């Protein structure tokens, strides 16, 4: 049985080292600009940090993947090709790309550099994935978190492209790569500026008995003092709909696939991804350490696999909203 790679996030060199030290096979990261979908102040890698990160990972036999996964904006295509060229120059192991034009450039200019199809490309069918294989020579595709496990298995059966799925982390509303909710409120979204709910539009306001959060003036949620908070995104807000106030789109929760690891391995998933380049090295260390142990246990003895309460406790603690879910993987409806 093939062992899936554990792909972990890094927003800083400290986080990259935490991922490597705790058992990640691959670490993914971005440059300090809007060519990646976690373009937040003070996050990500300049050339010097990336070179050091690659050295650190390669010395220990791990891989570094660079996400260049926003869509090239009109008149600025050169910024995206420059990021692809920089990744090639520094000797990364793969680039993760969403925009077909950027994929095409990478395939032409650097045919030997591995190309992964980003989740932001929103390719959910084997036809879409095989098309990208044929046109741009992609070696791996990251599936959006919208498919059931049976649907993931069907994709795997019909493609030679390696399939990567999300295993842990915050969930997007089930419309990845095509979501414009952030743009609706602020004019900026992950695909355009590399950030969902950019911080300059977010306002937390603490009052004696509650805390309000607004995005560009729009009230997204009001937390009582004993309630857990979540990321200030529209999809996870509570809104009044037909006289009732509730999570109208989705509850803030983190995906956690630990209990279905034997199934994920059985259907032939090549890589399991952890979300959270915006999180701290502490989060990266905690999540990587627990998933490493769980994956190793599931591969060693899939039939005897038992979920350890300690894994779930630590993973549950760092989850957004301190809640976990299996997301779309086990939903009964299609």
């Amino acid at each position, binding site marked *: 049985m093939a062992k899936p790679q554990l792909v972990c996030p890094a927003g*800083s060199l*400290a986080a990259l080292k935490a991922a490597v030290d705790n058992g990640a096979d691959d670490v993914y990261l971005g440059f300090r600009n809007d060519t990646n979908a976690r373009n937040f*102040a003070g996050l990500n890698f300049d050339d010097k940090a990336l070179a050091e990160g690659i050295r650190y990972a390669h010395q220990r036999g791990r891989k570094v993947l660079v996400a260049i996964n926003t869509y090239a904006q009109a008149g600025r295509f050169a910024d995206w090709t420059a990021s692809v060229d920089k990744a090639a120059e520094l000797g990364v192991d793969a680039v993760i790309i969403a925009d077909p034009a950027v994929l095409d450039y990478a395939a032409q200019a650097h045919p030997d550099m591995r190309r992964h199809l980003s989740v932001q490309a929103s390719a959910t069918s084997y036809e879409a994935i095989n098309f990208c294989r044929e046109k741009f020579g992609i070696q791996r595709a990251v599936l959006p978190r919208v498919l059931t496990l049976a649907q993931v298995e069907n994709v795997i059966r019909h493609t030679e492209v390696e399939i990567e799925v999300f295993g842990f982390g915050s969930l997007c509303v089930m419309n990845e790569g095509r979501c414009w909710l952030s743009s609706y409120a602020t004019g900026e979204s992950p695909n355009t500026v590399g950030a969902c709910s950019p911080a300059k539009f977010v306002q937390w*306001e603490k009052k004696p008995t509650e805390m309000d959060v607004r995005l560009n003036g729009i009230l997204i949620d009001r937390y009582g003092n004993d309630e857990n908070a979540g990321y200030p995104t529209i999809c996870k807000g509570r809104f009044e709909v037909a006289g009732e106030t509730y999570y109208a789109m989705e509850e803030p929760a983190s995906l956690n696939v630990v209990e279905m690891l034997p199934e994920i391995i059985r259907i032939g998933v090549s890589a399991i991804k952890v979300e959270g380049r915006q999180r701290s090295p502490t989060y990266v260390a905690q999540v990587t350490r627990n998933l490493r142990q769980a994956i190793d246990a599931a591969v060693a003895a899939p039939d005897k696999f038992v979920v350890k309460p300690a894994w779930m406790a630590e993973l549950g603690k760092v989850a957004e909203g301190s809640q976990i879910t299996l997301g779309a993987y086990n939903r009964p409806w299609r």
Partner: protein
Amino acid sequence: MANPLKLPTIPPFALPTLVARLGARLPQWPHSLNLALALNAAKKLGVLPEDSLRELEGRHFRVTVLDTGMVADFAYRQGAFRPVFVSSGQPDLHFTARLSAFLQMVSRQEDPDTLFFNRSLSIEGDTELGLRVKNMLDALEWPRLSWQGLRPTFLKP
């Protein structure tokens, strides 16, 4: 990496309310002075990245430790952290938490987002500045010290 300074595990705790009541009555300027001195020392060691520090220029910060009653005000001006003794108006950024949460955060035992989600840490003011400071703290590479390493050589086996 989870605990690079090899500090003992810090449990969540709250000091008795009397401590906060007394602490709040004490002069606060020594806290502001000490924190500014410590931050400048870290800067001098090269632990804090210069490019991120430049973005803090002219901004006023406040740290409130709920269960000790400590409030420290400081600003970053002309390339150095300076205590603010007479607080005029609202700070640009205000961190509030109990002592245990601050200790867990700086020792990298807990993730700041986790502390924020579970409401142990409150961040008010300019959200983008807050994110920048959080990401700067996250990116720090603490020297790999241990208490063992700090013991005088004549005590070592």
